[in-house]
């Protein structure tokens, strides 16, 4: 019994045992190794779908293209075009959508996506020139086309035409944007300059720069008083220096009031453009819900 125990210990302590154990551990992996091909077209298709859902469009496109090298699938062609569009690569996106027009079940979807690309590229006149009366996304197309008037620099059409297509929730925003674009609350540069010519700083206050306006009034008033006071005291040199300084701030303020009004107007315009863009981003460019994408 003791001998057996001792022999066992010798066996387990021997190098022979450890080498055998090591080899056994190494090769047993092969016994359970996965026999399926991870890079088969079907697996790449599934992985591509996962990446697409994760919005990892760049890698999803790679997987889809690999699948399409051996298979045909219009859904994937559409998804590649859609992914390129989301990535901002509009020329590639257009190429894929144009391939689908005429010979796939995604004709209407592709036409709409091409219109959307026109919007994203700010080709608003091209966008509005297209007409698809039989398209199943006619309403969405019209919404996008009408909305493009708000983003464009051209004259706005009649409000009845513009508002007719939107639902109540959308109309609140569209009407607000329309009115603000039609009658922007701009400040007049000339009026701001004239105001400052009469009362230094008033033009700045009119243009929304109250602090600068008060400062201009104080500086101009102070130097004018010092000039007047020195003329009264017959200190000609000092008087003329203060006169020059007063004129310097007075003239600068008239110019600055016009500039401030222009900056104010640019702020109004850019804020509106930003709000228009934010709204259509939230609306996803009135894109219909594609079951095969969501």
């Amino acid at each position, binding site marked *: 019994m003791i001998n057996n125990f001792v022999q066992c210990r010798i066996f387990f302590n021997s190098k022979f045992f450890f080498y055998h154990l090591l080899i056994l551990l190494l090769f047993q992996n092969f016994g359970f190794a996965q026999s399926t091909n991870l890079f088969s077209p079907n697996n790449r298709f599934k992985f591509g779908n996962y990446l697409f859902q994760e919005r990892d469009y760049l890698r999803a496109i790679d997987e889809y293209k690999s699948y399409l090298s051996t298979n045909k699938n219009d859904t994937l062609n559409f998804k590649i075009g859609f992914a390129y569009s989301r990535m901002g690569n509009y020329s590639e996106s257009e190429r894929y959508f144009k391939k689908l027009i005429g010979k796939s079940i995604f004709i209407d979807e592709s036409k709409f996506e091409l219109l959307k690309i026109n919007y994203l590229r700010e080709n608003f006149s091209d966008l509005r020139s297209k007409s698809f009366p039989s398209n199943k996304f006619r309403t969405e197309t019209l919404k996008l086309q009408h909305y493009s008037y708000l983003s464009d620099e051209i004259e706005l059409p009649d409000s009845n035409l513009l508002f007719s297509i939107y639902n109540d929730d959308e109309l609140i925003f569209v009407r607000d944007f329309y009115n603000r674009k039609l009658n922007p609350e701009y400040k007049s540069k000339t009026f701001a300059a004239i105001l400052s010519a009469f009362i230094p700083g008033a033009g700045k206050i009119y243009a929304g720069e109250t*602090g600068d306006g*008060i400062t201009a009034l104080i500086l101009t008033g102070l130097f004018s008083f010092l000039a007047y006071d020195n003329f009264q005291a017959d200190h000609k040199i000092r008087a003329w220096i203060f006169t020059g300084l007063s004129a310097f701030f007075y*003239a600068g303020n008239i110019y600055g009031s016009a500039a401030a009004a222009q900056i104010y107007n640019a702020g109004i315009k850019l*804020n509106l453009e930003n709000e228009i863009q934010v709204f259509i981003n939230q609306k996803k460019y009135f894109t219909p819900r594609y079951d095969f994408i969501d």
Partner: protein
Amino acid sequence: MILSTHLFAQVDWEKWEAADISYELKSIDKKNYEFDTGSLSGLLMSSMKNIYYFTISDLDGDNCPFHPSCSNFYVSAVKQTNIFKGTLMFADRFTRDSNLFKSRNHYKFYSHGKFHDPVEIYTLKENVINHIPQKSVVDD
């Protein structure tokens, strides 16, 4: 235990040693000391600018809250427009600089703390104003 505390004890000379800290405000605006010999007005402007740099700005330090600083603003304004319009733009800038109520709630600012106030937006030219929302940080 008792002796080990002596090893980490703070001694006077460490505690009271003068800290080697520089309080110098490093200038963000790069000063160009060259004379512009291309034209008479350029030579006049660059001479005035250098006199200002040597006699006031270099000694006083970087105190202008705006970027570009008022002196650089003036030089750029004259270069982009003309001496008359540039001077008016500078007078307006000087008024903004004198405004005690200006704050980050009103101006855009850089990460180094200076207010964003570029020359271009005051030239009265159309479509050059790239308005940035207030209280935002501008890229350096």
